């Protein structure tokens, strides 16, 4: 178990370094090779020569690639200093540099927005897990029934309807027409009740999409599990049907669901771009969308690294849980 954990953590570290390298190449080297001067990108097209030079000096863009890479890593792990003219600005770790547009440090922008995205993803995950599992299990048990067909039609709709469509419709109906919930985002610190009210629709909208996928997965897995010999054994022991399903069948059904959940939550850490945009939620997704339109490379870079890290760590947690659920997965 311990060696397994060490090996996995080691793998995570290697993975992150590789990701950082890849990101560095994409954001710094490729523009350079393709003849775009990062300094001009930073300053803007109409900038005069002096300010471009100043920026170039500040970002050390004239240094050899390896030095740049070293500085980049140093910035992330211990922080780095930018020297421009005579004055020095210290950017503390983890330093992803400064936004090209707002000239703010990137890290505080990310830490501001990460909790919002996190609350959106986790809240939705709770809903989609409950709904997805319940619908999937019931459909599997009543396979071929009217309920099953209705549920699977609903699931198909959930998977195929885009978030901005369901989101806008639900906004129109529940927020504007019926005025049941708030249509704007309120930070949790300001007013928890209003925050909750504002988050309900985004949660449900996101959960509709994912819940549909989970319902289909759960149904398929459950159908398979119910045909297993050990289910027959459980019944042959005289166990009540709820125990057979709730304990014996569910335990096996959870394994693939959990795997998917880890990956999904990890990926959502990069921001549910469509959901956040539809509901004007100031999360990472919204930030990255803006960064893309602004060509704000440092910000994109920061979000990319956060997403990648989240996915890698989520996978690690899932694999560890896997070992807890399934004793055959030997963590050695």
């Amino acid at each position, binding site marked *: 178990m311990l060696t397994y954990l060490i090996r996995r953590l080691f793998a995570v570290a290697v993975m992150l370094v590789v990701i950082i390298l890849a990101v560095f190449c994409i954001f710094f080297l490729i523009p350079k090779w393709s003849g775009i001067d990062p300094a001009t990108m930073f300053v803007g097209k109409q900038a005069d020569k002096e300010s471009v030079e100043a920026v170039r000096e500040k970002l050390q863009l004239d240094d050899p690639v390896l030095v740049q890479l070293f500085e980049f890593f140093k910035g992330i792990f211990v922080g780095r200093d930018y020297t421009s003219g005579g004055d020095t600005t210290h950017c503390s770790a983890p330093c992803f540099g400064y936004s090209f547009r707002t000239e703010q440090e990137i890290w505080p922008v990310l830490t501001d927005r990460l909790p919002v995205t996190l609350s959106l993803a986790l809240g939705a995950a709770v809903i989609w897990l409950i709904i997805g599992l319940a619908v999937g299990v019931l459909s599997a048990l009543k396979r071929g*029934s009217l309920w099953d067909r209705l549920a699977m039609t609903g699931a198909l709709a959930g998977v195929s309807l885009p978030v901005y469509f369901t989101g806008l419709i639900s906004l129109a109906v529940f927020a504007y027409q019926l005025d049941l919930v708030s249509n704007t985002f309120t930070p949790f610190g300001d007013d928890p009740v209003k925050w909750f009210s504002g988050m309900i629709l985004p949660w449900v909208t996101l959960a509709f999409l994912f819940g549909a996928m989970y319902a289909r997965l759960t149904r398929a897995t459950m159908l398979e599990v119910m045909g297993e010999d*050990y289910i*027959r*054994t459980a019944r*042959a022991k*005289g166990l009540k049907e709820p125990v057979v399903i709730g304990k014996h069948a569910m335990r096996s059904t959870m394994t693939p669901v959990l795997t998917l959940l880890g990956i999904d939550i990890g990926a959502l850490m990069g921001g549910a771009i469509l959901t956040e945009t539809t509901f004007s939620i100031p999360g990472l997704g919204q930030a990255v969308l803006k960064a893309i339109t602004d060509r704000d490379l440092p910000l994109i870079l920061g979000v990319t690294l956060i997403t990648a890290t989240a996915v890698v760590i989520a996978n690690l947690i899932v694999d560890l849980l896997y070992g807890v659920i*399934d004793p055959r997965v030997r963590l050695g």
Partner: protein
Amino acid sequence: MTDHEHKSHKDTEPGTDATRVDAPQAAATGAAGAAIPEQGTAPDLTGSGTAPGEPELDQRPPSSFLEVRDLRVHFPTQDGLVKSVDGLTFSLEKGKTLGIVGESGSGKSVTSLGIMGLHTVGQYGRQRPQLSGEIWLDGQELLSADAETVRKLRGREISMIFQDPLSALHPFFTVGHQIVEAYRVHHDVDKKTARRRAIELLDRVGIPEPGKRVDSYPHEFSGGMRQRAMIAMSLVNNPELLIADEPTTALDVTVQAQILDLIRDLQQEFGSAVIIITHDLGVVAELSDDILVMYGGRCVEYGTAEQVFYEPQHPYTWGLLGSMPRIDRDRADRLIPVKGSPPSLINVPSGCAFNPRCPYADVPGDDVTRTVRPELREVKDGHLAACHMAQEDRERIWNEEIAPKL
């Protein structure tokens, strides 16, 4: 199993190989499709009593410990109604062992699951198998009893050992947990007591260091040990009736010998009735007092082990004996196989189900073997066979043609 649409049962004559349907699988696939051909007048027999229109059976409780009367288990599928068991009658006394022999698709496993009442649990609507007949256990009729009553009998009065202990035990729970669970469903005891009982039984079935192995997972056991654990689980409630469905098929020969030995010992100790289901004539010969030979969902021969092995009355039994290479004798020149393949259970051949494969189908004359289904008749005391041939013909063929070649 989705490419079965074109496999209509019309395009092949009964008895050819092309329409082989293994009942359980077919039942499982049947549900996947939308429209299922109308079952006509087949009444929806959902586990409660005999159907209206069925011949009224003798409703008096029988004197035997277990008595199965005219049991029918039919699975509706896309391709048609699979008649896995179609009118099976037998009885069994306490302390005796009945061996049910047959090939795949003969209905032997379906029968055992029927006695356990496992066909209807969790099944509903179209997939639900249709059961009729009577199963009397210790004076109680099981098919008409409500589901909860049968559930309480399962595992306590009747328990079962399955073929493949690796897939029959839940991979995520320890062996001890699964035995404790089986005990606590039927006994209101605390976990400690149940655990002690589990260890006691693991010890009884010959698992070394039971106090330690009780916390192992099934995958940590070897094949033989798993089957021992399975047996421990089935015996935890001192069942009156133990059904062993191919208990040694998945095991190696030397381990098989250990398990057969164990089953025999345990039966003497617990005095329960045992039904052993297998395709291996060696295994039945080893364990059984009585033998029931199944073919196409019906009993074709029933008798004591002596009778079935030394004076078999049905050509199918002859075929089984002739097909089998023997370890205890030097090589006979050739095996005498049964021609053709097992019948389709959707389109069971009319008359005697065995007639397309029977070398003696024309012995009785009048084409009776192809038109009239032979009833199970007593040929000697306690020895029953379902064959149209006259007693003299059968004895002559057996003594002159079959026995010398075995």
